[in-house]
């Protein structure tokens, strides 16, 4: 469950990225955040992963007030949230399997379990055969699937994706979206920021439209 109560975000340069956002996203749902560039989609996601903190208002994730988290609780919260980046953010000097295992290493999981869970996650995104390759040898779509495998390997309750299909052709974009719906069926709450309107018609997903930092429409499945 994710709840935003009258949330504002102003950046140090004075830009108001979010203005009076109130939003409720139920557990196990899949929601698209849409809107023009600079509408506030990415900022909204970054508030949930605590990459940013709100200027005013309250962000609640699974009954946790994120503004009150300190110290290692921030890191622990981030481990419960999987994040998929538009530019994948893979480490070029590590194999695909090592990239996927990174959140487990960070969480102090044993080496054997890291390997087996990383391979299981790669199997889900159909990249097990490329586990020992380096990211540079993969296509953009494959790199994004590695990014998704890394985001889900820690079995997060929430999966956040910031323009995950931004750099992909329509066919690959559809494949990536299918993966998100697949993880959603495993009771993972999924939030996807996208300006690609082709996916919004899917009536299994909710849609929240932002403009200039404010919610201008929302639809629930």
């Amino acid at each position, binding site marked *: 469950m994710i709840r935003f109560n009258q949330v504002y975000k102003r950046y140090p340069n004075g830009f108001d990225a979010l203005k009076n956002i109130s939003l409720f996203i139920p557990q196990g749902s899949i929601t698209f955040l849409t809107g023009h560039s600079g509408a506030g989609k990415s900022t909204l996601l970054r508030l949930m*992963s605590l*990459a940013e*903190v709100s200027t005013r208002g309250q962000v609640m994730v699974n009954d946790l007030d994120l503004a009150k*988290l*300190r*110290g*290692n609780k*921030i*890191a*622990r*919260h*981030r*481990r419960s949230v999987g*994040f998929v980046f538009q530019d994948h*953010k893979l*480490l070029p000097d590590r194999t695909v399997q090592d990239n996927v295992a*990174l*959140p487990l*290493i*960070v*969480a*102090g*999981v*044993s*080496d054997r379990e890291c390997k087996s869970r990383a391979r299981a996650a790669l199997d889900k995104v159909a990249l097990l055969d490329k586990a020992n390759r380096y990211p540079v040898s993969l296509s953009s779509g494959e790199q994004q699937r590695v990014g998704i495998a*890394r985001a889900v390997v*820690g079995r997060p309750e929430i999966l956040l994706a910031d323009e995950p299909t931004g750099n992909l052709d329509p066919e690959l974009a559809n494949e990536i979206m299918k993966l998100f719906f697949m993880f959603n069926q495993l009771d993972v709450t999924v939030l996807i920021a996208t300006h690609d309107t082709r996916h919004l018609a899917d009536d299994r997903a909710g849609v929240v439209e932002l403009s200039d930092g404010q919610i201008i429409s929302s639809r629930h499945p």
Partner: protein
Amino acid sequence: MKVYFFRHLQVLFDTLGRMIRSPLPTFMAVMVLSIAITLPLLLFKIAESMDSVSNQWQGTPQISLFLTFSGVDIDSQSQSFGRELLGFESISDIEYISPLEALVDFKRTSGFGSILDGLPENPLPPLLIVFPDESLTEGALDALVNQLSERPEVDTISYDRDWIQRFSGLIKVFKQMLYVLAILMGLGIVLIISNTAHLEILSRRDEIEIVDQIGGTRTFIRRPFLYFGMLQGVLGALFALVLTNISLLVIGHSVNALAVLYDTNFTIPWVGLTSTVGVVAAAGGLGWLAARVTIGSYLKRLGINARER
């Protein structure tokens, strides 16, 4: 706990692997560090040896009495005076060197043998070397010297304490300069490692941000850089120990030859095990500290886990 230690070992070997994979920059950085450590270490070893020589001299003060006796019974008169002095509580031993013994010794060491042979008579006076009691204070020693110098049998008195005091003073100044140099070099080590750690951080900036984003704690993010700093310090110290011992080997022969001329046993020993452990631990610790400060300030500047305390 097993996983925790395994992860530490993994980071240690991963960091070592990274250093080996870029051999030239690693070698350059380690050599700069080792030179910075070698200089004070070498000077310290020299100061240590000089100190021990100074202590040796200070432990056995000697007073040389050149006597006024002459004539055929010069030896018996001198030895009789020596026996009288042995009765003093403040004198523990006396050594008599006759004019003949002194002449033979002088011929042997001075190289003026042929000139001395041409002299009509032995010009050297009889000599008594007085060994004062070791328990004497400086004041009591001065009193003894004054007492002996007033005796009519004594022509000239020579006491090398002033020279030893000057030598000790010089060593003291030398050691203080060494401490200042060691502190400056320590600061230099911190700055060198801080600089290389900063470059390492910049080259792994993306990794830091990703690890932060997926839930890595500050401790986890810092760990590879701390090992990096520590390894640089340790490797720098190990190279420095090799350089120092090689330098000691090179200058050792010349020092020994010089010491023989002064009739002393002055040698500079190799860096011992305790010093080796101390230098490696200190350099490793300084490396760790430098990396800790650098990565700490970098994370703070980036705002990573900004609310972590």
